[in-house]
């Protein structure tokens, strides 16, 4: 039992990390990015390539992939999202447009991955040794993944709550109409929030690839899970995303361990359905 809780925490830490990335993109930049999970998968394959072809450590891969994802996401926002923001008469129209465009982007990224890597399940072996944690054995790569999720999550929290730039981000999240009155360039903040969200997705991808197999078409599932965590935690709440991510990770691990590994997605959906029915604003969200 304890072993599953620890594994659930590890998985949950990763979910929380990628959900924070999605919160940056959806909560602050106001873009519902359906290709979010594919950024994660690209980072998975990128790590795989760097580890297997260049014998780099996944930690070094992080130094290449995270800035890469930042630049890529910035460019995507500039090229695809900014024109939509400019033409949308209201928030709902922007939501529909961004959903449609990122849905197209999802197929482009997935298609490119399929051409390069094919559709098979891929993984690599890194730090695959057991470590004793409070009496149960956890593989070292999972442990490292958990620590990395904590480090990235902590760094993001620090930036958001302790720096001037973070305050600007939170201002745009809270009141996008009033933020310009205080001299905040909302478009600029949105661009950077979107790019930081992409960078977090990539770091999540590197973390995931260390202990899980992945396929070119698995992006949809990651996007789904990130979205569910965001909604479960309450839209825009980072603490909520953290706790909700861990809840989802533990639920999934327990379902896989005690019921059937084939039903984890069904369990995720059951959690989602329960929130929608009983608390659509999420555990920590206020009414929109």
């Amino acid at each position, binding site marked *: 039992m304890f072993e599953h809780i620890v594994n659930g925490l590890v998985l949950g830490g990763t979910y929380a990390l990628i959900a924070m990335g999605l919160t940056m993109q959806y909560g602050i930049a106001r873009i519902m990015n359906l290709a979010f999970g594919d950024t994660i998968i690209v980072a998975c394959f990128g790590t795989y390539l760097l580890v297997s072809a260049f014998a780099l450590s996944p930690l070094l891969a992080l130094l290449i992939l995270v800035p890469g994802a930042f630049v890529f996401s910035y460019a995507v926002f500039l090229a695809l999202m900014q024109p939509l923001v400019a033409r949308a008469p209201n928030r709902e129209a922007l939501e529909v447009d961004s*959903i449609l465009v990122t849905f197209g982007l999802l*197929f482009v990224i997935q298609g490119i991955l399929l051409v390069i890597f094919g559709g098979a399940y891929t993984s690599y072996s890194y730090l695959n040794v057991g470590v004793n944690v409070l009496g149960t054995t956890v593989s070292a790569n999972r442990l490292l993944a958990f620590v990395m999720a904590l480090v990235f999550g902590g760094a993001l929290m620090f930036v958001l709550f302790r720096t001037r730039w973070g305050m600007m981000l939170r201002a745009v999240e809270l009141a996008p109409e009033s933020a310009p009155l205080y001299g905040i360039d909302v478009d600029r903040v949105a661009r950077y929030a979107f790019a930081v969200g992409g960078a977090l997705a990539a770091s999540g991808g590197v973390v995931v690839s260390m202990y899980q197999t992945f396929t070119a078409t698995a992006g*949809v599932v990651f*996007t*789904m899970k990130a979205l569910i965590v965001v909604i479960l935690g309450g839209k825009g709440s980072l603490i909520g995303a953290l706790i909700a991510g861990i809840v989802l990770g533990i639920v999934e691990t327990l379902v896989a361990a005690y019921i059937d590994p084939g039903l984890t997605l069904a369990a995720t959906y059951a959690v989602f359905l329960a929130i929608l029915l009983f608390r659509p604003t999420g555990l920590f969200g206020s009414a929109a």
Partner: protein
Amino acid sequence: MPTYASLALVAVAVSTLAAAPFYLSDYGVGLLIGMSGYVTLATAWALFSGPTRYVSLATVAFFGIGAYTVAVFSETLPYPLVLLLAAAIGGTVAAVVGLSTLRLAGVYFVIFTFGLAELVRQTVTWWEVNITGTLGRYIFLPFEGRHIYWQLLALLTVTMLIGWLIGRSRIGLALKAIGDDEAVAAHAGIDVTRTKLVLFVLSATIITLVGAIQAPRWTYIEPSIVFNPTVSFLTLIMALLGGPMRLWGPMVGAVPLFLLFEWLSANFPNHFSIFLGLLFILIVFVMPNGVLAKLEGIRKGAAQ
């Protein structure tokens, strides 16, 4: 008002299309099946998503449910009963999804439908592997291509008729109001959630039937074949290209795109989804309201 001339025109068009299999090769009939299937899917999709602007990404979930119902029950039940059962299952799933998401903001609905196909696919796979012990089923129904085509044509005609009737009924007016402004519609006394729910269930039931009717074409099916997410994507892009707000829009989008996709998947099977994605982004940027609205805009511009 429908004049007798336009009624006669529709009757001539339908009977010409119905007679087409007698003059075409098997390949031609196969193309007609695919085309009428997608036109029906896109039209049914637009019945709900056009006026409400709720983007449903779950087309293939219902399509696959229809196909799977036929695969499971075609040996034990008479065919018409299988179709009814498929419609009932599809409609019930749609009602559950709709009841839990349609009273919330549109984005919840999109997210829920986004993963629905994957959920149904994984659950069916799990069920087949663990409970029935088989993955993949054979369908032996005594249908030739043209029989399937005629059924699809009939379903398409009914779907267009429903779309046309909705356009001039109270529920159509209510839908237009909801699409324009949900809050105003609610204040005007429209039961917003119920209207959306009815339309969603109707649209999903038709989509389920398309899957059910097309299933015998495959002979052998398994979850990864009938729950292929490309179907949802193609349906969406076809309806958007033509213009989901108009009755004829999805058809105008579906016919050329279907032929283009046939050609692409025959010549560039590996790069198919890249082209698809790029084309889709282009459509959203260049003609967000569809080609019919674009043409209308150009004509108005020329007249002035």
